[in-house]
């Protein structure tokens, strides 16, 4: 849905619609570039397991470490179960610091199970 929204927006502006992560950099607005990259890589975490091959291939097309780390951080927040593997890949101090907010809370990445019974009193 988000991806569709981005495409609608870009079409409305007359911008070329990126079809690969490498083409996101052609967009004129820096924030739209970041979101384009993030949304291109969102499917790598959306099945419940991390598609590391697709993720690393996509990240390789993002030249800038800061942009790359922002993508990884956003993915880690969107999919806390994958945060460990995603945050291992960040390079900048700013992203490492913000990743700690997710990694320091291991319950975020646990399976949601039925609660244990309360004490019987």
């Amino acid at each position: 849905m988000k991806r569709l929204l981005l495409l609608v927006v870009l079409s409305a502006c007359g911008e070329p619609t990126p079809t690969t992560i490498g083409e996101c950099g052609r967009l004129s607005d820096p924030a739209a570039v970041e979101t384009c990259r993030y949304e291109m890589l969102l499917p790598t975490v959306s099945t419940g397991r991390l598609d590391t091959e697709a993720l690393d291939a996509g990240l390789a097309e993002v030249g800038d470490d800061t942009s790359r780390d922002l993508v990884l951080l956003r993915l880690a927040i969107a999919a806390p179960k994958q945060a460990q593997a995603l945050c291992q890949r960040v390079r900048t101090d700013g992203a490492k610091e913000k990743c700690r907010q997710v990694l320091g809370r291991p319950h975020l990445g646990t399976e949601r199970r039925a609660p244990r019974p309360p004490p019987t009193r």
Partner: protein
Amino acid sequence: MKRLLPLLLVACGSPAPSDPALDALAPWPEDPHQLVERCAREPFEEVAITCRVQAAAKFGAAGDTLAAHAVCANVPTGTWRDECHFRAGEELGHAGHAVEGLEHCAKAGWFGRNCLTHTGWRLPRDPALHPGLSAARIAAAYEELDQRVVAALEGAGDGLDGEGRDIIRARFGFNVYVGSGRASPEAARLPDPLGPALRTGFAIEAARLLGEDASVEAILAVWSETAPPPEGSAVSDVATLGRYSLPLVAPGEHGTPHIPVFGGGLRPVGASPDEDATIAALEAMFWLESTPADTFVPWLDDPRPRVRRTAARLVGRAPPRSLDLPALLEQVSTTHTDDTVRWHTQQALKSRAWEAPARRPPSQ
């Protein structure tokens, strides 16, 4: 559709002068009010979410529960909304506002139970409440607290309200006695449900004050008033920390009433006040980090099932002094006539629990 227009304006307008990725990864302000303003300007939704969670935690640490509620209301429902209330709740508890923290735990969804433990056990001690007061005065203070807790947990589903009350009651009992320098048993004779919580506190304080002379029998002598209550100096919160165990309930104990104990564990409630005092005394001896496994061995064959099962749970979790503990556990776990005693000793054998260092909660 309402999200489309701002995005169009951003996407079709002039490029922003700053680097949004660099801005998003920049350090956040420490002040929660400034942080909330920062979150509102954050163009990336995911970063804005964690920004708000951080702001709610900071408001919690500052004791501002209303601001924390307002910030969490702007976090999308689901994992991060739950986490927002969890962070606010535990920070409020850490800042001495445990009851206000419980209001957040009630909204913490899947993390509600963790939140209750982190927050409820941080109920601060009220120095005006101590075992030198009449039992009626202590009971009245608890009733007032319990009413606030019930109100804070109103609407919390999934048994959280009952569990939160249990935890707060247990901490109240602990707070009245432990560290007070007094171990008069009067308040610990109050009826259920407060009595067992106070008995846990009584037994721990008696053990602490008896020091090297502490034993289950010595604590019970104070309980039965055949020995005078020990006295000593009141101590700070840090000195009230002790060894704690896990909330282990055997399959054979599921029908037995349990109450929370120091550090997140559970203990059975005795069938009578005297039996309960014995269980509390065993727990208190375990709380003393110097107590060896040997102390619990004589109680493994107690005729009262809840007493011997408590001893079985604790014996394998304390280092032995002169005992061949693995051999004893092996024997008990295969030959004891009580299935539940066998279960507890098997659990200890599996993990060699006695080899783990005595642990204290990081902060209570």
